[in-house]
Each structure stands twice: as C-alpha cells, then as structure tokens.
C-alpha cells in the first residue's frame, strides 16, 4: 500500500523539486538542450492531439468494410432481380414458341392441352374470380418493441404452419390455383420457416401474407369456413393474429418461378 500512499501524498514528479534546487544553485540549461526540449515538446503535443483525434473518430476500416458489404448486397439484389425478370421473359417466350410450334404442326388441340396443363401445374399465369385471405402478425402492443422471443410475441406471429393450414384448407375448398404474396404454389411448393422468416419456395416472405386463391369465391369461402382451416383461423384470432377473407372478382396469379422438370415413372423391370 505504500506505493499508493506515496502516489496520494506526492503526486508531483520528484524531478521538478530536484530541478528547482539545481536552478537555485545557478545551474542553467544550454542552448542545445533547450532546442531538444522544445522539439520534444512539439512531439508530445503532436502525439497527444493525434491520439485524441484518432480515438474520437469511428474506425475508418469498419465504416469502409460496412460500405463495401452494403454495396455488394445492393449489387447482388439487383443481379437477382435482373435474373428473375429475364427468367420470366424467357419463360413466357418459351411458352409462346411452344404454342406456335404446336399450332404450326397442326395440333391445335395439343397446344390447348399443354396450355391447360401449364395453368394447372402453375407454370402459366392465371386470372379469374377468387378469394383473398390476408394473415397479419398481431399488432405490437403500445409501449415499444417487446422481446421478439417472448411467448406473446411468438404466439402473435404468423408461422409457416399457419400458412400451410390455410393453403391446404383452400385446396380442400376447391381452389384451382394459389399464390402467396405473388409467389405461385405448385404441387412441389414448400412453405417453411427459417428463423423468423417464412420461406415460400425458398423465397423469404414478409407480412402481411396475402394468399390469393382462384375459384368460385362464394363456394371457396363457405368450404374454407366449414373446414378445419376455418376453425384454425378462429384460434389464430385468439392469439391476436389478424385475418381477412374477402371475395375478389379478379385475382391475378403469376406463373411459378420454379423450374419445371418432367418427372415420370418407369415400371420396375420384372425379375424373372
């Protein structure tokens, strides 16, 4: 403790006292040492102010790295959007050419069948009267953002399971085609969750979730309400999830963005 005690009682550099006594004896600094002292003092001031300046500024590397990642992200998103648009164009072109080729070959009936199948599988866009179901997360209670992982917050959030049940209910009610937030569902579509996000065919979707179903609106509505999905929607309302079901005179469902590959079964060779 003596070290700390000494620090408390004699905080001044002992050198000052020594120098003072030396000065009292008539000892003076030479010109050279005065110049060196001045230079060193300049150095001291410079280093101190540079250090302070540097510490007050945010680390430029971090800012730069962040900006770089941001730029790359924007670029990638633009790239994805561009590719998706060009995919859509190409797909439409392929359908057109296919239609032409089939018609040209004299198979009008065949072309119609291909178009019909394309609408059925979700490859081609369809339009017509239908039903719209909107699911939205429970409103955040007044007084700020609660913990996102708290039980009420989790219960009030729409999950992949909810969407699956509503979609299956719509299929059961006789929907001819379904899209979630403009993402067309096919027989191979998956509605899954990754963390807090819901993925429809691996594309993340954000609330509100608009499920558009093609079909006779009144019939869809009645059958949906009668089925298990109707009761499930009531349960969701109890958790604070808002749902709206509204008939539409016209719903536009785009073609699915997924790749269509022809899967066909082959008989297993009989072993003699």
């Amino acid at each position, binding site marked *: 403790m003596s070290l700390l005690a000494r620090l408390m009682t004699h*905080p001044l550099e002992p050198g000052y006292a020594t120098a*003072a006594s030396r000065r009292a004896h008539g000892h003076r600094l030479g010109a050279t040492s005065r110049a060196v002292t001045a230079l060193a*003092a300049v150095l001291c*001031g410079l*280093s101190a102010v540079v*250090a302070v300046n540097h510490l007050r500024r945010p680390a430029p590397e971090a800012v730069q790295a962040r900006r770089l990642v941001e730029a790359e992200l924007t670029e990638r998103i633009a790239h994805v959007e561009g590719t998706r648009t060009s995919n859509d164009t190409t797909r439409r072109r392929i359908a057109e050419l296919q239609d032409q080729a089939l018609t040209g070959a004299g198979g009008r009936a065949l072309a119609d069948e291909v178009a019909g199948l394309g609408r059925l599988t979700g490859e081609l866009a369809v339009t017509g009267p239908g039903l719209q179901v909107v699911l939205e997360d429970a409103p955040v209670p007044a007084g700020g953002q609660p913990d996102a992982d708290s039980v009420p917050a989790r219960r009030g959030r729409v999950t992949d399971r909810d969407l699956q049940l509503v979609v299956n209910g719509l299929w059961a009610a006789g929907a001819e085609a379904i899209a979630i937030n403009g993402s067309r569902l096919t027989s191979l579509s998956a509605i899954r969750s990754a963390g807090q996000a819901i993925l429809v065919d691996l594309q993340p979707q954000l609330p509100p979730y608009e499920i558009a179903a093609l079909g006779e609106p009144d019939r869809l509505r009645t059958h949906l309400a009668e089925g298990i999905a109707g009761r499930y929607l009531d349960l969701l309302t109890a958790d604070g999830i808002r749902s709206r079901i509204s008939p539409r005179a016209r719903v536009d469902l785009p073609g699915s963005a997924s790749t269509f590959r022809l899967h066909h079964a082959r008989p297993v060779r009989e072993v003699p």
Partner: protein
Amino acid sequence: MIAVLGLVIGVIAGLVIEPTVPGWMQPYLPIAVVAALDAVLGGLRAVLDGIFDDRVFVVSFLSNIVVAALMVYLGDQLGVGSQLATGVVVVLGIRIFSNAAAIRRHLFKA
C-alpha cells in the same frame, strides 16, 4: 516556458495536419492519452508551485507515454493486457486526481 510553447505548436500542428495513425499503434492510444493528461496536470501544478522546469516536463511527458504503452504491449504479449492497462489507468488516475486537487487548492485556496 519553451516546453509549453512547443506543446502548443505540436497540438496546433496535429489539428491542422491530421496524420493517420498506423494500425499497430492503435491499442496504445487510450493509455497514452491518459499518460499525457497526467503529465500536463503535473506540469500545471509545478507551475503553480513555482518549480516548473521545461526539461522535467518534457521528459515526464515522453516517459509517461512510452512506459504506459510498453506496459500495455507487455500485457498483451503475456495475455494480461486489459489487467495491466487497468493498473496503469488506476495509478495515473490517482495522480491526476491528486494533482488536480493540489491545483484546486492553489487556485481557490480551498
């Protein structure tokens, strides 16, 4: 007083030039600033005591910074960097406090 003059010139030069600090130096900056603060307060007290000396001031200033940085470096090498830095800050902090108290007594006689 030549040391004070030099210090002021250095501060102004630093503000005007704004040189960049190499990356390897950055861990030592905070502790160096505390050491510099200690030296400045010590010098101020010496002025009020009437025993200020240019050479002692500059030497204490430089040695403070260098020793503090060395201790942090040594601590980093031994894996006790933050603890040693804390020690340096505690010692310098006590000195800063005591010198500030002495300066206050000088100025306000209280």
